[in-house]
């Protein structure tokens, strides 16, 4: 399934491209495995896969520095892997086990990492947007130069609190990047049927927030735009909006048959725009990697994913008494 689009010239180094290939492939294979474990009944509840959108988070993570924060919605597995969280801990949280990031109490939609400054994993559409602004507010208050990436979808972009946040983020010049992952469908409702504007990022103009639309199937384009956004936010000029046009190959969740779009539409995207295939072609055409090099990467990724699945199966379920813990803190749960 080779990408038919001709590959373009790039200044990216072989190492950089190989890293993107590897990071995106890890997300793809991890999500496929999660889908499989879900099918086997090992993952309960809801499960939203990131397949197709890998270039968004991998491209943006390439622009971060130590100390930057990220927060997202419930389609969060890719974000966690991309910011360096351990696949074993993520998969074990999906299966609701003690070895998971939330010790089995969060599941697919609710994972956090204090260490990686990953602030969740939120199930209420739009709610993570002011939360992300709050994290950015804390950085500004403390006087450091960290920025916060606040990811949300085209569906969340219609929530009122997003615009309340645009207003305050612009007013207070909060160091943050609003990342609209526009995968064109808010569950089953297309952007056309739900959203009055064709370009969501342009809504920022009403608040004086600059932004741009980005090809989200091209990891290099995402990284370029991300660098512009980070430069703006880190230098104290306030928020920036990236509307990243992407596509999810799978349904909204595991139980979504996706009848609101044609099989041909999905297949065309996979055949012509796949973010991983695009990087694969650049690597091969520029002789930055051989087929054998890529096979070795595939093998390495497969092992990481299989090991995470194995860990997620053998890690014990939390004891019933755990239902009563972590409801109240006895001391401040994070560094003040």
């Amino acid at each position, binding site marked *: 399934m080779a990408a038919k689009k001709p590959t373009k010239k790039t200044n990216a180094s072989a190492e950089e491209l190989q890293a993107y290939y590897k990071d995106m492939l890890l997300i793809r294979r991890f999500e496929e495995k999660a889908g499989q474990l879900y*099918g*086997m009944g090992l993952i309960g509840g809801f499960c939203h896969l990131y397949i197709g959108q890998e270039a968004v988070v991998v491209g943006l993570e390439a622009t971060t520095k130590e100390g930057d924060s990220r927060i997202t919605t419930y389609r969060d597995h890719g974000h966690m892997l991309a910011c360096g969280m351990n696949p074993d801990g993520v998969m074990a949280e999906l299966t609701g086990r003690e070895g998971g990031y939330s010790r089995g109490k969060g599941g697919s939609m609710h994972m956090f990492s204090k260490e990686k400054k990953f602030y969740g994993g939120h199930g209420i559409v739009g709610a993570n947007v*002011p939360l992300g602004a*709050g994290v950015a507010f*804390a950085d500004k208050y403390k006087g450091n130069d960290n920025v916060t990436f606040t990811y949300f979808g085209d569906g969340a972009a219609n929530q009122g609190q997003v615009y309340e946040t645009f207003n305050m983020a612009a007013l207070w010049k909060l160091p943050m990047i609003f990342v609209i992952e526009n995968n064109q469908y808010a569950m089953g409702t297309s952007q056309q049927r739900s959203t009055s504007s064709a370009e969501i990022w342009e809504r920022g103009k009403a608040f004086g927030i600059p932004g741009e639309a980005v090809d989200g199937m091209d990891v290099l384009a995402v990284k370029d735009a991300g660098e512009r956004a980070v430069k703006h936010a880190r230098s104290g000029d306030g928020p920036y909006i990236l509307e990243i046009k992407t596509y999810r190959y799978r349904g909204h969740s595991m139980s979504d048959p996706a009848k609101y779009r044609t*099989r041909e539409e999905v297949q065309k995207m996979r055949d012509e725009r796949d973010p991983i295939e695009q990087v694969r072609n650049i690597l091969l055409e520029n002789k930055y990697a051989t087929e054998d090099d890529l096979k070795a990467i595939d093998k390495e990724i497969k092992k990481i994913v299989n090991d995470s699945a194995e860990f997620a199966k053998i890690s014990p379920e939390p004891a019933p008494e755990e239902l009563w813990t972590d409801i109240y803190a006895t001391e401040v749960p994070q560094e*003040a």
Partner: protein
Amino acid sequence: MATEILMPALSPTMEEGTLAKWLVKEGDKVSSGDIMCEIETDKATMEFEAVDEGVIGKILIQEGTEGVKVNTAIAVLLEEGEDASAADSVSSDAPAAAPAPQAAAQSKPAEAKAPAAPKTDTTPDWPEGTKLKQQTVREALRDAMAEEMRRDENVFLMGEEVAEYQGAYKISQGLLDEFGAKRVIDTPITEHGFAGIGVGAAFGGLRPIVEFMTWNFAMQAIDHILNSAAKTLYMSGGQMGAPMVFRGPNGAAARVGAQHSQDYAAWYMQIPGLKVAMPYSASDAKGLMKSAIRDPNPVVFLENEIMYGKSFDVPDVEDYTVPFGKARIWREGSDVTIVSFGIGMTYALEAAEKLAAEGIDAEVIDLRTLRPMDTASTIKSVMKTNRCVTVEEG
């Protein structure tokens, strides 16, 4: 090595389904993402994709078969180059049963005994001889915030009209002058948004105090109070939470309409993860507010507009705090227990006076915090009086 392809569960509740249609046949090569078959659940027809690369060696369940149980082998996948005969000796990828947590040791139920009077903390809020000063609830709340802001630079106040206007009800009077615009922040009229920003700032290590002009307006923000602030500690397995205070006037004021009069005490006290305080006196307003700001959990602090101007004795000491979960007995009595909190205490104490004139000796308990609630003090009192009347507005 040949592997079995198993009937998938395609929704949280699916136990079986119909294998509606095969889109591949024996001998076909598949790679991850290829659609192999269509499966009908009770809700929809779903496409089932291959996860691994290989060749379909054998189809075990024919299309049209109904009632196929989840995890039944439906086909055999061969690795490339593998002979079809390998389909007969497959390795099953069936899920291993989750190791069950160790069953708690069975313990015999204790013999039923007459309950002993519960233990309660009856130490007075301040030792005898403490110097006292008269203060309004309004001044006590302001002093509590100012003292905590001096103590911890991560404490800040945000809300509508809290800074330049000096507070819609003048609770934050003088704070902007002392602490500056960085720490006393006027927000736009946007409760949902600024409550969310407050919670995010708490995630990020600050100790926000979020003022609502009234708790009625906080209905626009209740999602962040419950879903974002109260639940995150649990959902993160204890990694992070929202140590912060949501505060403002609650309940009926004088001569205002229904949209400015609701008492939310009974609502918020039902929410795991929140603590809820509703003080009556100025000393409790001060001591509980200081405890609330220091508490590592989100605290809902319910004030009352009518009480703001009422004066009480407040200990004139450097650092006066009142712990959560400790009721105060305002009046000891032996005939009936009256339990209340917040402005309800006004009526409870008045009633006790009237009852005393009739020769009835009432004990009056102020719960002070509703979550945690000091039920032991009430139980102990009722064991003495055998009668209990509760007084609340919400």
